[in-house]
């Protein structure tokens, strides 16, 4: 499991986007992180992965001090993959070439690379059909699946996914969430940041609620299904009187 203690972090010196985060993400479960805009959800994933500076606090995983690792080391040495919010396929390259690049850190071992890529095609038949198509011609949902598939090539123990369904129509989203669901079956731990709270509760095992740079609540999702509506109402309501 990943443990955070009193984590303060940000992109610019002197400004902490994460304002003392303490949380434990259990292994082999899907942890959904939700919260209003600006709460720091994306920043949390980025900070753990090494894309933002830690000003105070600790991040540990099974004895590793994660603050010691650069992002490329996270994939190669620690075994954590990251699917960012922004589009990250290489649009001019084919699906197959995109996947080969995802296996960069194991490229020396051809057998393993090929087996890993075939395994991804097995899990994502849609990608198998489009092996040689330019990645830029795929639909948004297919590109997202490509990104997730690509992240699995090095057989990571943990996958971070930032906004799996952002910008996707509901029918495409379902495919993406199904593929995330299957990850749990393979004993991959998933940390998910999602603004689609319903989906986060439906597919996640544990819910983490962030507000203003802190984790303010942490419940199994089964306990939360009825309460999310109240939660959201509270987020969009004015605190105090309207002038």
């Amino acid at each position, binding site marked *: 499991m990943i443990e955070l203690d009193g984590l303060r972090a940000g992109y610019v010196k002197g400004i902490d986007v994460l304002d003392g985060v303490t949380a434990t993400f259990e292994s082999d479960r899907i942890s959904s992180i939700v919260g209003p*805009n600006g709460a720091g959800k994306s920043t949390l994933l980025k900070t753990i992965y090494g894309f933002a500076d830690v000003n105070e606090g600790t991040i540990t995983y099974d004895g590793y001090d994660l603050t010691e690792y650069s992002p490329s080391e996270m994939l190669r040495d620690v075994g954590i993959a990251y699917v960012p919010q922004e589009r990250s396929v290489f649009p001019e390259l084919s699906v197959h070439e995109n996947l080969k690049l995802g296996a960069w850190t194991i490229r020396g071992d051809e057998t393993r690379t090929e087996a890993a890529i075939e395994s991804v095609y097995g899990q994502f038949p849609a990608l198998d059909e489009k092996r040689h198509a330019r990645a830029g011609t795929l639909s948004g949902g297919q590109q997202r699946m490509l990104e997730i598939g690509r992240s699995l090539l090095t057989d990571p123990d943990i996958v971070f996914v930032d906004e799996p369904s952002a910008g996707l129509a*509901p029918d495409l989203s379902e495919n993406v969430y199904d593929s995330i669901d299957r990850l749990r079956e393979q004993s991959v731990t998933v940390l998910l940041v999602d*603004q689609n709270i319903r989906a986060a509760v439906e597919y996640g095992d544990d819910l983490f609620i962030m507000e203003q740079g802190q984790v303010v609540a942490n419940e199994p999702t089964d306990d939360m299904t009825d309460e999310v509506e109240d939660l*959201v109402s509270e987020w*969009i*309501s*004015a605190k105090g009187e309207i*002038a």
Partner: protein
Amino acid sequence: MTIRTENLTKRFGGLTAVDQVSLEVNDEIVGLMGPNGSGKSTFVNCITGVHAPSAGHVYHHEEEITGAKMYEIAQQGVARTFQTPHIFGSLSVHENVMVPLLNTSRDRAEIEALAAEYIELVGLDHLIEEEAQSLSGGQKKLLEFARCLMRDPDVVFMDEPFAGVHAEIKTTMNDRIEALREDGTDFLIVSHEVNSLYDISDRINVFDQGRLIVSDTPERVQDHERVVEAYLGGATE
């Protein structure tokens, strides 16, 4: 009717970012909110000339400005600020604010004086000769705001003016916006910070997936079921 859109639509490839939005801004401060990706910024971009709409119309005082160039729209009195402030880094604060009037026939001394006034208005007068690049993020937002007022616009579109700024800067901006509203300038403000929006807006529009779903007073918007739905994200089918 200062600004009126009619079935404004913007498509990027297969994605419809703005879906037949018809709304008005007239004698008021209008707030615009909605979940991420609901099309708020794209909508503002379509009105201010950053994008040309795929379909629909935009009217400024009932004159069509649909698809006009950014500088033409700016020259006609429609001003805007950006989520990440766009400023001229190598110029001084003073020069930054002067720029919008430099290609008019107004006297240089007059432009300098007017710019100094606006700089004082937003509280940046102690930095007036500093290179704009050295300002903090919040100060750059104030700078951009001062600059966009130089042409005396009748409507100002602001995209996330409160994001990532200190409380004092927020207060300054709020005060200025209210004062300008009293002088007759209309505003449309896009913001995730719903509290700030409720305080300042006369009316709130809520977007979800490119569509305008609710247009009502701040009090009623908060309790509106459809709005809660939008932020919940809906089920995945």
